[in-house]
């Protein structure tokens, strides 16, 4: 007896884990993965809605979100590589030049 509620709760938990991960982890790549996790949690939620409201709109939106996620990852990783070339570290706390 899986109701829509279960899906939403799962989506919420995934989102929270992702959010906390972004805040807590120091490795940039892991932060990216957490961001992806947040996006996918949202996707899950959208799919659930789509199923239980019998509407395709949710699935359409998921496709768009995935495209955006992909694009974002591209840009993000590009920045990351550029930063790595500047300083050979993937610790985000070392990038504090904007302090002040």
């Amino acid at each position, binding site marked *: 007896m899986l109701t829509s509620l279960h899906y939403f709760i799962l989506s919420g938990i995934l989102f929270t884990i992702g*959010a906390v991960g*972004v*805040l*807590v982890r*120091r490795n940039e790549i892991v932060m990216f993965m957490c961001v992806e996790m947040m996006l996918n949690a949202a996707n899950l939620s959208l799919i659930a809605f789509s199923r239980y409201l019998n509407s395709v709109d949710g699935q359409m939106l998921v496709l768009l979100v995935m495209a955006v996620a992909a694009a974002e990852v591209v840009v993000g990783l590009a920045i990351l590589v550029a930063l790595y070339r500047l300083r050979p570290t993937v610790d*985000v*706390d070392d*990038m*504090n*030049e*904007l*302090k*002040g």
Partner: protein
Amino acid sequence: MLDYAWLVLLFPLVGVILNALFGRRLGKRGAGVLASAMVGLSFVGSVLLLVALLGREETDRYVIRRLFDWISVGDFHVQVSLLVDPLSTLMATVVSGVSFVIHIYSIGYMADDERFVRYFAYLNLFVFAMLTLVLSENLLVTYVGWEGVGLCSYLLIGFWFERKSAADAGKKAFLVNRVGDVGFALGLILIFITFGSLSMGMVLEQGPAAGVSSGVATAIALLLLLGAVGKSAQIPLYVWLPDAMEGPTPVSALIHAATMVTAGVYMVARTHALFQLSTSAMTWVAAIGGVTAFFAATIALTQHDLKRVLAYSTISQLGYMFLGVGVGAYAAGIFHLTTHAFFKALLFLAAGSVMHALAGELDIRKMGGLKGKIPVTYWTFLIAALAIAGFPGLAGFFSKDEILWRTFLQTKVLWALALLTAGLTAFYIFRLVFSVFHGKSRVDKKVASHVHESPKVMTVPMMVLAALSVVGGYIGVPKILGGGNWIEHFLDGSLGWHLPTLTLTGAAHGTVSQEWTLLAVSVAVALAGIGLAYVFYVRKPDLPMRTAKSLGGLYTLVYNKYYVDELYMGAIVKPLKDVAGFLAARVDGPIIDGIVEGIGALVAAVGRGLQQLQTGLVRNYALGILLGAVLMLVYALVR
């Protein structure tokens, strides 16, 4: 012509603007000629106005030409209008004529000065302001001219501002003048409150009839008098004039002898209808005039600085003018103003010529025997000296005598004082003549070899003024000598208004024999003064020194100008400075600056606080974003 009266004011203004903008390009000669030409045109205009006025009926000589509306607020209306009547045209002619002559002289005198162009710009500005003062129909516009001449006086006294004494003198002149101006301004306010208008026509017409209480009238008159006292250097506001000698000599001649200082006398004459409403005010005017005349003459006896003697002489002669208008002899006061302009300006110009010959020497103890070396200067100075001493036939004789006669009819005390002053005048002026030009030369050796007469551009103006000093008096020959006293008659159009028999003591007319006696006495006193000076400074040159020593303390007192400057410094200036210093250190510094700086510090502190948020750590910023998103969500849900 009367419709173009405003041109008289326009020319000097154009001169200022052109000189200020293009003076450098015109070069020294160009600037000087331009400025002089402008004043010359004003002079021509003034004369034409005078002629136009003379062509009219005697009763029709009060002409007003409206220029534009200046202020129109509620009940307060001020129109800028020109008043063309006997008094103003006479003043305008004298002012522009003497200015013209002095402009030409200045071309020679200031030839070596770097700021030549600026000098002429200031001088033209002065003429503009003075003519505004004299030709204005509205008292507020007159006040504008009044302030304008005060400003130019400051600028020109402190013309050589690199010298501290000159800069200080300029400040002193302006500040002391200002004290008087406060009185004038308050008087204007009171006039407006009482009469509802500042237009001279309205005030003078309504004045006597308006049923003004004598208290108010006295207040107005005394306040106006305060202004006049400041501008015309009478007691107690005369202290700026001797110091004003720091300025270039032509400036001393023009501003502090012939024109600006006479503005006070003009003002009293112009508003005479108001003064006549208050006997006490008139008494004050006459008393201040008489006492100042005597006081200044005594100081002039002792000074060694050529220009200072002339400065005190000016103060003294202004006292005569005040005495004249104070006893109701307005025309006589103005007559003396006119003749004084001629011979005093000449005295100053001649002094400038002497200084020019002696490379700037001012101390008469270092002069002497110059008669043969600078003859033109000598003869013109002599003529002016005779005029001021009241030598029969020359200009000063007629005007001074008229004042003495009219004073005698009112108050014997002031007459006696004035007569004594006349004697002192003759003495001190011939003291100058004999010390500077006669006797043995006490000139410094280095300077003596370069003694030379001044160039024509300087001597011709002096000769013109000398001629005027001789013939200028004939416009006012009294009846007993066969003349018609033309000037008194002419000025009746302006000064004869509402002339009740208000007098100080009651007597209005004397007898012919009295007048003759007085004439003879005046002449005798003048000749005695000259003779005494001859004895002191030619015959027995050690007599002055011996007299000074024997007078001891009295001499020291007079020589130090009765310590008035020191008194003012101690009683007024220093306390004010101390208060200002206290306020600057304790109020302005800690409190006002504290508040301003405090606000700045506050802003900085807030900034520093907010700075804590800028850690540079990405994760902190991410947290911020998350918190913000959560808050917005909560807000949306709760609404």
